[in-house]
């Protein structure tokens, strides 16, 4: 029984970190059809922002939840102005340019912070369930992931900004004809997506630590989750993260953690072969 609970918690934690990792990418890809290959480095930057702020005496929670998203959100806004804006509608070129950006960010952070691992210890201590112990922080992250998904759904479904965003996503030309400014919507969307990535980077930093090259560990998983999720931003990401996270954890429990990752990747490849448009390209098509 305890074993089952701990297994479920592990699955939940894996799903939550997949959701956190990919939500920023999902917002940007889903709304703008822009693949941000520097997404992993946005997460990395969020981690560094949180750790740097914490080392300068900022409260840890403030550093993770406020400083990291703000810093990365601002950075994203600048990137959108300088680079992304000129490449709308050119999917491959955006991928290449953001990939260059990711290299440049790795190089820059290496120069500034050095090629070493920095970290902060996870807050909240640990929790015992029967004979097993697990970090309370992981459970907190599950809560954050759920909260983010619900908040995102509420914003998209019930606010004016959400309506405009959905309209622009469906038909930019028509939305423009009705008086919105798609380019402004895109700019805000990119900044929001970046801020979400920064938040995720800050929140994940205590678990994984940060190195300049950590983005590579994030990008593939985020990329895969978003693409397997398909067109619907929130439900697609949630479903794909649940499926892949469960497969990852089960394979990790059965074999080793490396084979767990390999199982996740293989599952994603098979999934894309069966559903080339992603899960929400076939099922739940009208979901958000």
């Amino acid at each position, binding site marked *: 029984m305890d074993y089952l609970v701990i297994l479920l918690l592990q699955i939940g934690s894996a799903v939550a970190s997949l959701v956190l990792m990919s939500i920023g990418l999902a917002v940007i890809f889903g709304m703008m059809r822009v693949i941000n290959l520097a997404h992993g480095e946005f997460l990395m930057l969020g981690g560094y922002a949180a750790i740097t702020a914490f080392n300068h005496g900022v409260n840890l929670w403030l550093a993770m939840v406020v400083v990291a998203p703000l810093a990365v959100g601002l950075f994203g806004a600048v990137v959108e102005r300088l680079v992304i804006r000129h490449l709308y509608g050119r999917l491959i070129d955006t991928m290449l340019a953001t990939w260059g950006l990711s290299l440049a960010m790795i*190089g*820059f952070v290496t120069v500034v912070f050095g090629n070493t691992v920095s970290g902060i210890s996870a807050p909240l201590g640990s929790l015992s369930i029967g004979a097993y112990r697990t970090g309370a922080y992981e459970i907190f992250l599950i809560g954050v992931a759920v909260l983010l998904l619900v908040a995102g759904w509420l914003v998209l479904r019930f606010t004016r900004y959400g309506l405009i965003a959905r309209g622009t996503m469906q038909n930019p030309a028509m939305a423009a004809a009705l008086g919105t400014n798609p380019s402004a919507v895109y700019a805000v969307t990119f900044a929001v997506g970046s801020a979400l990535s920064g938040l995720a980077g800050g929140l994940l930093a205590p678990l994984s630590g940060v190195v300049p090259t950590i983005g590579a560990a994030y990008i593939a998983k985020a990329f895969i989750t978003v693409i397997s999720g398909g067109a619907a931003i929130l439900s697609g990401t949630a479903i794909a993260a649940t499926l892949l996270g469960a497969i990852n954890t089960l394979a990790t429990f059965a074999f080793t953690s*490396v084979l767990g990752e390999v199982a996740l990747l293989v599952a994603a490849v098979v999934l894309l072969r069966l559903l080339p448009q992603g899960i929400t390209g076939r099922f739940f098509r009208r979901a958000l």
Partner: protein
Amino acid sequence: MKAGRVKAGPVKAGRMALAGNLAVLAAGLAALFGLPAFAETYLIINSTIFAAFAILALSLALIWGYAGILCFGQAAFFGLGGYTYAVAAINMGETTLPALMAVLLPALFAGLLGYFMFWGRISDVYLGVITLTVSLIFYRFVNQTAGEQWNIGDAPLGGFNGIPSTPILNWPGRAGDQLAPEDIFALSVGLLLAVYFGCKLLLATRFGRILVAIRENETRAELLGYDVRLYKLAIFMLGGAMAGLSGLLFANSVFVSPTMFSLPVSGQIIIWIIIGGLGTLIGPVIGCILMQVLTNWLGTVSQIKGFGWVDPNLVLGVLLVIFVLLVPRGLTGLAAGVWSWLKGLANRAPAERSATREQTDP
């Protein structure tokens, strides 16, 4: 007069292409025979790596530039070629058959993967994701193969450390009689030339033209009756074979390690092509050699005190962004643009003169 001018166009273009081919051939032969005469072993080995990478650049230049398949995981075939060779050579002793396997196995694997992707009608981003994922799977898997249980025959896969004792090629049929670094260099440059002109010939055939047609408009090519999937599969397998060949040569000048499968390798190839010029063959080769020289140089510069900020990643990344934004056709496109601009300048003067004369004549 006018008819003559129209005729002159293609003839002139043909002559230009011939001149270009001869220039490439001359440069290749000069490197092949000139370099060993004066260069030290270090430079020879470095140049061998360049030649191996240039073949890798050609492999993606062919499938991306001419067939429109953007493969983010070309490193998978590169690494597979290297590892196949290393494992087979350690087990067999004689290296001729392992060298052949290093080309064939990646091609077969590309065939399998390609069947999966092209018959599933997966395109664009999705194809990028799948190829990227496959190369990551290899990377993760090979990275953790330290220890006895991962030996294939006599060959330990060695996990993160790779196989430092990768055997060097021997002369065919004479096991143990290894090639000297100069011979490996000659072999690499020779193969580079062969692959380059092989690609040129291939693109001039009917098959090559259909590939370009598919790149330009897949639906139209399909409606004209060509089985697009089959053509894409064939070129993808050829690209896999070329990447495997490159891995084989790389394994002979360095040794095989999991980094061969890594994301930076796949990305590097894309940078070479973007900098050199997508849709050409010579561009990626030039881009590859330029970028390798630049990275090596930056590596040494960043060691100097006060220049620690010169990080190769930083410079490469900024270069890539600049090229995508401002020089989308790469160096070869830029050169062609400058050339036709200069020609325009030279032609304008006489053209204006004749125009004014025609006006005044009647």
